């Protein structure tokens, strides 16, 4: 007997059909994953039957024997309150900021008309989701918890009223690799203990592989393939699924062919960065503590670590784009000046590419102006005609068509926006790129294309790269060496293969474990 049965579900927004003919069933204790790139209609298919999206659902959606399609908001509300729990991608925005954890749980537990639970019950709820020191956590606000803890609270709230179905919309995407598995293990445990049916939305195939029973692959609002997770992901039939599976970088794949390394280029020594502590607390928070590293011409060095380890801060300090308290950076033996004293010639050496492609482009500028910004400032003598020619060449170089030049960032997809950001970084012909999680905000397929583009540029131009990432598999595809950071220190540095095959430091071992699963 299935808890949740979807048959020929179609979703339309304002009469435009977005999702067509989705069918799947979830039995008690089972986990079904909806997989596909962003915009393929995964979230809409989950939310619309419950009246939680602007769309209109047609077809048949049965939750524990009740038909959801065609019900109005008033009829849906008690069903939502009693039968289903939701977990979202961003636990900070999904939890009400002004309510303490205890109050959030109370609201969740009482939504189906249950009597007011005692404090003991709350502690039991938090214990169940594996949150340590539950009695303290009850009196804390969401912003005082870490990302993983927030997601645990979110799951505790979503399951407080003992729903039959848990809908988890990208529950781990905002988390670190190692936290990802903890949260998914927790969901697995709740499935086993309470017979919870789970509908998982994800674009992360590694998560799906380890935790879902069955997979539904969606593309452009259509169901292209579905079946048992292990079989489908091992032998995908549909072309799109095959591309998705192939795009996931693997730790154990064949060694990538990387260009040869030249003479030493950049040396950063004893870098220390501190920030004032928030609020009234005295003292300063040490984000990077005496880090030393070198990069040679044409070499790619990965800076790997969990979030909060200081890798981005170190990267920016080296590129002189962020604060730096102590430490020196030399470029071919010559000292780089501090941030405010960087001249044009210095700025031309290192150019950055950031994580969020949309936020890294000024929403009010045209693509052509965005790409031209570095040459406008760094090569002010260039004529207008030559500048336009350079921009056109840069667009071609990142495989964008020339008619993109007049668009604004809003009209670009994530992958296109990141290509524009790469074009801007390359147009002044730097010798080194700083890639700050440059692919982690992108879909699997798009990320694979961007990595391929970066590999090509690395080969053709002999670019040195400092790649900041939390993904070891990605680091291995692009980088000669890997430096692992933890709590502001570089704890391990070595050849990519060596670090991955025989990690010495516990943090490295944890990262390798997390990427291997």
């Amino acid at each position, binding site marked *: 007997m299935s808890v949740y049965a979807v048959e020929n579900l179609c979703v339309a927004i304002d009469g435009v059909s977005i999702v067509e003919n989705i069918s799947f069933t979830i039995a008690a204790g089972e986990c079904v994953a909806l997989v596909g790139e962003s915009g393929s209609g995964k979230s809409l298919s989950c939310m619309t039957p419950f009246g939680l999206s602007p769309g209109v659902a047609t077809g048949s959606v049965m939750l524990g024997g009740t038909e959801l399609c065609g019900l109005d908001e008033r009829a849906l509300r008690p069903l939502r309150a009693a039968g289903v729990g939701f977990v979202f991608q961003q636990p900070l925005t999904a939890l009400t900021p002004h309510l303490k954890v205890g109050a959030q749980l109370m609201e969740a537990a009482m939504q189906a008309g249950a009597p007011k639970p005692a404090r003991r019950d709350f502690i039991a709820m938090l214990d169940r989701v594996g949150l340590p020191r539950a009695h303290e956590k009850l009196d804390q606000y969401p912003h005082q918890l870490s990302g993983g803890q927030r997601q645990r609270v979110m799951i505790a709230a979503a399951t407080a009223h003992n729903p039959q179905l848990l809908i988890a919309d990208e529950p781990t995407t905002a988390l670190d690799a190692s936290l990802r598995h903890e949260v998914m293990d927790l969901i697995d445990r709740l499935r086993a203990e309470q017979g919870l049916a789970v509908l998982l939305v994800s674009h992360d195939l590694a998560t799906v592989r380890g935790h879902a029973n069955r997979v539904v692959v969606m593309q452009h609002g259509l169901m292209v393939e579905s079946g048992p997770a292990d079989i489908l992901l091992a032998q995908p039939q549909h072309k799109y699924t095959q591309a998705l599976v192939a795009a996931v970088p693997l730790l154990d794949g064949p060694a990538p062919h990387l260009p040869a390394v030249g003479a030493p280029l950049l040396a950063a020594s004893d870098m220390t960065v501190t920030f004032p502590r928030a609020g009234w607390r005295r003292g300063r928070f040490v984000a990077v503590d005496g880090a030393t590293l070198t990069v040679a011409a044409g070499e790619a060095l990965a800076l790997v670590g969990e979030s909060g380890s200081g890798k981005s801060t170190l990267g920016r300090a080296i590129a002189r784009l*962020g604060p730096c308290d102590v430490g020196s950076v030399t470029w071919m033996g010559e000292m780089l000046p501090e941030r405010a004293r960087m001249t044009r010639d210095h700025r031309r050496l290192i150019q*950055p590419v950031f994580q969020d492609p949309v936020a890294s482009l*000024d929403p009010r500028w045209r693509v052509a102006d965005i790409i031209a*910004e570095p040459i406008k*400032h760094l090569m002010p003598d260039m004529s207008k005609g030559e500048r336009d020619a350079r921009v056109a060449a840069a667009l071609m170089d990142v495989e964008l068509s020339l008619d993109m030049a007049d668009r604004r960032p809003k009209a670009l997809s994530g992958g296109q926006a990141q290509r524009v950001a790469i074009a801007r970084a390359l147009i002044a012909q730097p010798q080194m790129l700083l890639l700050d999680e440059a692919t982690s905000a992108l879909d699997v397929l798009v990320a694979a294309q961007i990595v391929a583009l970066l590999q090509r540029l690395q080969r053709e131009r002999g670019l040195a790269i400092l790649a900041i990432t939390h993904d070891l598999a990605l680091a291995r595809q692009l980088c000669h060496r890997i430096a692992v950071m933890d709590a502001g220190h570089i704890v391990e540095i070595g050849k990519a293969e060596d670090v991955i095959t025989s990690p010495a430091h516990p943090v490295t071992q944890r990262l390798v474990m997390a990427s291997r699963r």
Partner: protein
Amino acid sequence: MNRPLTLVAVIVAAAVLGPLLLPWPYDVIDWGAVRGAPSLSHPLGTDSVGRDLLARTLVGTRVTLSVATAAALVALVIGVAWGAVAGWVGGKTDEVMMRVVDGLYALPFMFVVILLMVVFGRSILLVFLGIGAVEWLTMARVVRGQVIQLKQRPFIIAAEAAGAPPRAILIGHILPNVAGVATAYLLLTVPQVVMVESFLSFLGLGVQEPLTSLGILVKEGADDMDLSPLGLLVPGGILVTVLVCLTLAGEKLRDRFSA
């Protein structure tokens, strides 16, 4: 269509063009119709000295709105400049600049304006200066917050990497992205200034006779309420309509940009 703004546009058009079309100017006395009831030549009647009320209402609207617009623009310029510099430079400068704002906020503004009027005599310039000196404070706070938020966005850091000097970043990236929010608060500032100006005029501290403003008209209308309620209702109605419409439009804009 933006209905509140359309309504404001109609009122502005009437205030600008209306007096040209009327037979009686706002400051000419019709000796034949002192305290006259509404008639064909005076649609709203005349006031206690025989001046056409419709003409006076339109001119009063014009005066009130132009004082408000000018004061709001002054507030915009000072507020954006002050807030942008404080937010961009940060640190000690920011502290000092924002404490100045806090200090000015703490002044009992109405009292200061009344004191100025008493000392220097009534003048439209003083009204204007007094209002402008206070209304930019909120704008400065809002703009500073926006700038601090924008400063951390990757595209600003990318601009720094692109070698853009601070002035170019401020003018090229920060100000255009603050413009939307600033416009929204500009729209919210205008009704506030209208309120303040009307209140000062109602107290008899606003513009000089024979020039008039909505506040003066409401006061005179209230005095002659027993003779003709139109003298109170029409300027009062225009005042309320302008306030509500501008506030609605401003809040709508503000919500769009803060989302």
